[in-house]
């Protein structure tokens, strides 16, 4: 009789193990750039559940070890899983107690392998990651996508940031930006994202990583301007349209 059998479709079917099919709670873009003393990274604190802005205090940037900073967009639970893996990795490295520590290049490589292998098993970690760090005076900024595409560049962005922030960065980034100039440039990008990305929240953090260490700022908001006179009565000439 079939009375005591558990539902067979989940346990015995070939797709018994469940895999990530679509993301649920997502974070939007992360933007980062290299500046004179290290790396600057910015991300807002929103976690959207589909089209609702459900969580507004999600920290999407975390320090890894002594030398690196990881920012993630995409599924938040997969980001938390990655932090667990990285925690084990850093702990294992510390236990050697040999004076060496994992630098950003090594962490970037590890993340690439993890993401690519998960994608090959058709069970991806649904994230786009930005990894920045400074070790022995060398600045490093790289990106890994959810299918394992990885590269290194002077400025990176994930998600919508690719379309809206990278054109600005390609135009205005230069070597040897000072801290204030870098923050101003990042804020410019985040402001455009706030205007034009529907899943952006006006509560962001900016993180700085230099040879001295890692600081993640307190959350703050950007000033926006909505007072163009053309927005006041836009359809004065064309009744019935927007």
């Amino acid at each position: 009789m079939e009375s005591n059998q558990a539902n067979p479709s989940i346990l015995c079917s070939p797709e018994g193990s469940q895999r990530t099919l679509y993301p649920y709670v997502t974070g939007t873009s992360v933007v980062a750039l290299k500046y004179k003393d290290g790396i600057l990274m910015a991300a807002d604190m929103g976690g959207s559940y589909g089209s609702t802005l459900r969580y507004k205090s999600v920290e999407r940037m975390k320090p890894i070890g002594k030398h690196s900073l990881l920012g993630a967009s995409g599924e938040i639970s997969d980001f938390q899983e990655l932090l667990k893996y990285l925690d084990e990795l850093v702990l294992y490295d510390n236990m050697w107690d040999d004076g060496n520590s994992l630098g950003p290049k090594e962490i970037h490589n590890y993340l690439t392998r993890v993401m690519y292998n998960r994608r090959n098993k058709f069970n991806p970690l649904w994230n786009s990651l930005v990894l920045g760090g400074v070790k022995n005076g060398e600045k490093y900024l790289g990106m890994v996508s959810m299918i394992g595409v990885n590269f290194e560049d002077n400025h990176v962005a994930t998600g919508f940031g690719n379309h809206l922030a990278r054109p600005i960065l390609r135009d205005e980034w230069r070597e040897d930006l000072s801290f204030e100039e870098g923050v101003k440039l990042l804020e410019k990008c985040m402001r455009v994202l706030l205007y034009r990305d529907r899943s952006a929240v006006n509560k962001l953090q900016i993180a700085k990583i230099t040879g001295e260490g890692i600081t993640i700022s307190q959350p703050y908001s950007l000033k926006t301007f909505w007072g163009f006179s053309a927005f006041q009565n836009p359809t004065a000439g064309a009744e019935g349209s927007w």
Partner: protein
Amino acid sequence: MSKLAMDVPPKGGFSFDLCKRNAMLAKDGVQLPPFRKTGTTIVGLIYQDGVVLGADTRATEGPIVADKNCEKIHYLAPNIYCCGAGTAADTEAVTDMVSAQLQLHRYHTGRESRVVTALTYLKRHLFSYQGHVSAALVLGGVDFTGPHLHTIYPHGSTDTLPYATMGSGSLAAMAIFESKYKEGLTRDEGVQLVTEAICAGIFNDLGSGSNVDICVITKGSKEYLRNHLQPNPRTYVTPKEYTFSKKTEVLSTLVTTLKERVEVVEAGDKMEE
């Protein structure tokens, strides 16, 4: 009783008669011919005296660049111009048609065309085709009520904006506008901002490229600056001329004039009817 064949008056809107046949053909493996799209960056902005429109000049057919220097800013009226993105044939045809309708309207009313008139003609046409006429337009002009800038989407909805971008490069161009637009721009600042926005589209979007076209419209005048900026010139042109191998030698020349073979008779017979 004989069947009366009634002439049903043609109804407006899209005729879906051929859709079933197209679906059947697609099932049998017949591919629709590819259409040439203008994967594009088009922008417009209002400055203190009028409107500046800008466009790139690349027309693509899938992954190939079909036309390196096409014109995407179309004439509608002496004081109204329209940039078009989407299917090239659709934008050309729809702007040509509305331009003719506007001229007839000008003769009928005896007045300069208004931008909202062009807007209404375009949106009514596009809506009646339910988005199948794939034309996304940035319409700008100056009439006696002032400068106007509108965007029109393929399904027929419109927006009225101080600055607007459309096409595949619209996000790159909008990023520039959102970070640098302010009110009360002068003509040179407006042209500079539009050029920067189109260049952002040209260099960051694969569907846009080649040169920048600009059109400045003010009360009573317009300037169409075709290829205002050419940031993608041919980088290598061979300095030597092409050399051809030695031609056949001419040994001798003999010229014979043609004789006249027609004799014109003064008083000929009349042609028989």
